[in-house]
C-alpha cells in the first residue's frame, strides 16, 4: 500500500510538485503518467527518500523515511548508476545484505537468467551498457522481495525480451500482493499492466482512473481526454 498526502516539493522558487495526493492499495499496479517536466520523477524520488519534501508519504502505513518502511520498498531509478568496482553479482549481494533480504540463491539465479544476466555476473559496473545497468537495477530491486516497488521509466534502454520479462515480473509481484508504481510517458508500455492511473501535468495530478471504471477505453484515449493534447489527427479534443 502506498499513500501520499499533500506532497509538495520545490526546487528554489520552482514548485515541482504541488499538494499531490495518491493512493495505491496492495496488489495493484499504479501508473503515473504525464509529459516531461510534469513532476513524476520528483514524486518517485520523494518516495525513495532522496529529496526533502512537505507532506506525508506512507509505505504500508509507515512513514517512508523510517527504516522499517525502507525495508518494504525498492526503487528502480530512471538513470541507473553502478559502482564501478562492483560486479553484477556483488551489486545484488550488497542489496541483499542492506535489506537483510530472505531472497535465496535460487531466486537470484532465476532473476539473472530471466533478464539474461546470468553469464554477465562477473562483469564490473563500469563495463556494463545502459541496458544492462537497467537490468541489474531491476534485479537488485527484486532481490529485496518488496511490498512496494517504484519504477521510474523502467523500460527505457531495455531490449524487447527484457521489457516482456519485466512486465511479467511486475504482474507476478502484483499477484503476490505487492504494490507497484510505474512512472512513465510511454503509454503503450504500461497498457496491459495498470490497475490505477494518475495523470500529472504542471506539478499537479489532474486526474485518475481505475481500470474497472473505464471499460474498453485504452490508456492513450484516457490520457489525452484529460490532458486535452492533440490526438493522432492533430485535432484538440
Amino acid at each position: 500500500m502506498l499513500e501520499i498526502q499533500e506532497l509538495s516539493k520545490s526546487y528554489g522558487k520552482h514548485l515541482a510538485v504541488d499538494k499531490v495526493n495518491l493512493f495505491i492499495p496492495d496488489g495493484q499496479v499504479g501508473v503515473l503518467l504525464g509529459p516531461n517536466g510534469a513532476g513524476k520523477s520528483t514524486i518517485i524520488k520523494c518516495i525513495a527518500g532522496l529529496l526533502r519534501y512537505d507532506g506525508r508519504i506512507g509505505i504500508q502505513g509507515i512513514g517512508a523515511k523510517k527504516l522499517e518502511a525502507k525495508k518494504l520498498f525498492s526503487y528502480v531509478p530512471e538513470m541507473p548508476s553502478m559502482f564501478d568496482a562492483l560486479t553484477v553479482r556483488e551489486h545484488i549481494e550488497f542489496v541483499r545484505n542492506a535489506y537483510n533480504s530472505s531472497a535465496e540463491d535460487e531466486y537470484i539465479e532465476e532473476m539473472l537468467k530471466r533478464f539474461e544476466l546470468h553469464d554477465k555476473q562477473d562483469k564490473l559496473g563500469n563495463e556494463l551498457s545502459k541496458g544492462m545497468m537497467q537490468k541489474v537495477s531491476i534485479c537488485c530491486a527484486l532481490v529485496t522481495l518488496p511490498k512496494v516497488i517504484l519504477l521510474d521509466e523502467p523500460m527505457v534502454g531495455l531490449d524487447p525480451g527484457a521489457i516482456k520479462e519485466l512486465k511479467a515480473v511486475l504482474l507476478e509481484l502484483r499477484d503476490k500482493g505487492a504494490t507497484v508504481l510505474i512512472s512513465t510517458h510511454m503509454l503503450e508500455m504500461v497498457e496491459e499492466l495498470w490497475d490505477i492511473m494518475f495523470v500529472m501535468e504542471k506539478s499537479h495530478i489532474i486526474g485518475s482512473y481505475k481500470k474497472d471504471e473505464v471499460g474498453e477505453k485504452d490508456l492513450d484515449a484516457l490520457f489525452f481526454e484529460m490532458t486535452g493534447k492533440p490526438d493522432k489527427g492533430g485535432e484538440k479534443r
Partner: protein
Amino acid sequence: MRALFYLTKQSLVNNVKRAVKKPITLLIMIGGIIYGVFVIVMLGQLVRTVKVDSVRGLLAIVTIWTIYMFFGNFASYSSRKGIIFRPAHAHFVFPAPISPKLILIHGAWMNYLLSIIVAIVFFIAGITVFQIEVWRMLLFFLTGCVLELLMEGSIMTYLYANDRISAENMKWVGRIIRAFLIGVSLLIILYFRRYGLTLESAWSFFDWPGLQMIPFVGWNISAYHLILLGPAPLNIVCTTLYLLSVAGMFAVARHMKCEGGYYEDAAKFADDYAEMKQQKKNGEMVTSVGKKKKKFRRVKEHYEATGAKAIFYRQLLEYKKEKYFIFSKMTLLTLFIAVFFSYMMKDSVTETGMPQMILLGIVGYMTLITTGYLGKWENEIKSPYLFLVPDSPIKKLWYSTLMEHIKALADGCILCIILGTAWGVRPGQIAMAVLIYTVLQANRMYIKVVVQCLLGDSFGKTGQDIIRMLIQMMTLGLGIGAAVLVGTLINIDFVFPIILIYSIIVTVIIGLLASFRFYSMEQFA
C-alpha cells in the same frame, strides 16, 4: 553496517585486482608508495638539517597541520561538500534501510584514513626524529586518532545530517562557521601584523596563549601542548575545554534525529563530482565542482552558411551568446602571466640583451603547458553531425578549428604585446611572435587530433598529452635548432622568420594528416 563494509571491501579488492591486471597502474601505485615514503624520509632529514628536530619543532608542525585540517574540514562540511558520494550511492545506498548517520560516517572513511595515516607518521617521526618519549607519542597518537576523529565525525554529522534545522537555517549555520573561520584567519594575520613576519615571531606564535584560547582548533592544539610540554594552567584549562567540547559534540551528534535530509544535497554533489571527474578524464581544466547553470545572452544576428562553413558560424553564434564572447579563463591566465612576467622579469630579461628570445621561449612554453584548455571544437569530433556535413574533411577540420585560431590570435596578442612592449622587443618581432603563438597552438591542436586518432583510448588523456608534447617537441625542435644555428652563425634576426615559416609548414602537414580523422567517426586504433 554489514552491507557498507561489504561495499567497501569488495570495491577495494576489485580495484586491487584490476590494478594487478594492468602493469602500468600497478607500477604507478608502487611508485607512488615509494615516492610517499621517500618524501616522508626526506622531510625527516630536512627537519634535522634545519634543526627543528625538537619538541617545539613537532609542536610547530602539528599546530600548522591542525589549523590546516580544521579549516579544510570545517569549510567543506559547512557547505555539505566534504564527503564524496557517487551517483551509485543515490541509486543503491540512500534508499536502502541503513541509518543515514551510518551512511554519512561510512562515506567519510577516506577522510579518516588520511587522519590515521598522518597520526601514524607523526607517531613514528615523534619517536625517531624528534626523540620524544613513547608514552607521550602514544597519547599524541590517541589524540589525533580518537579525539580529533570523534570531533570531526560529530561536527560532520551535525552539519550534514541535522534534520531539525531547516535548510535555510542550516545555510546560516554554514555562514556563521565561515565567519568564524575568517575571524580566526584575521586573528592570525593581526598577530603577524603586530609582531612582524619573522622567524622569531613565527616561533613565538606557536607558544602564543591567544592561539590556544581559540575555540575548538586552539583547544585541540592546547592538548598537544599538554602532552608534549607538560602541564601548565592554560593548557590544562584549554585541554579540558577540548575534551568537554568533543564529548558534547559527540552526544549532540549521536542523539540528533536524522532521516536522510542530506541525501538531496549529497546526490546533487555526487552528480556534480562525477561530471567533474568526467571532464578531467576528457583532459579539461576543472577548477570547481558543481557549476551554476550557465546564462546566455540573447543574440539578434542571423548567419547563413553552407557546408563546413556552417560549423564555424554555429560556433560564432555560440560564442556570441557567451558572457565574455571568445574570452575565457585562458585569456585571464594569459593576461596574468603577461603582466606578472613583464614586471617580475623585466630587469633580468633586459640584462640578457635578447628579450625577443625569452619572449619566444615563453610562447613555446605556453603552447606546451596549455593541455587542459579545450574550446568548443573538441566537442565537434564527438558529434556525429560533423561527419554528416556534406563537405571535404580538410574544410571540416579548418572550419571547426578556425574559431580556436582566432582565440589563439587574441591570446597571442595579449601575451606578446604586453611582454614585448615591457621588455623592449621590436614591433616586427612582436607581430611575428603573435603569429608563431597562433601557429603553435594550431600545431598543438592538430597533433592532438592525430595522437587521439592513432591511439584511441590507450594511454589515457595524460599519456596522450605526454606523447603529443613529445611529438610537438620533436617536430618543432628541428626548426628551432635550425633557426638558432642560423641566428648564431649569420644573423639573430633570422630566428623569428625561420621559426614562423617552419612552424607553418609543419602545421599544414600535420593539419592534412589530422583531416583524415574527419572522414569517419571511427578511429584507427
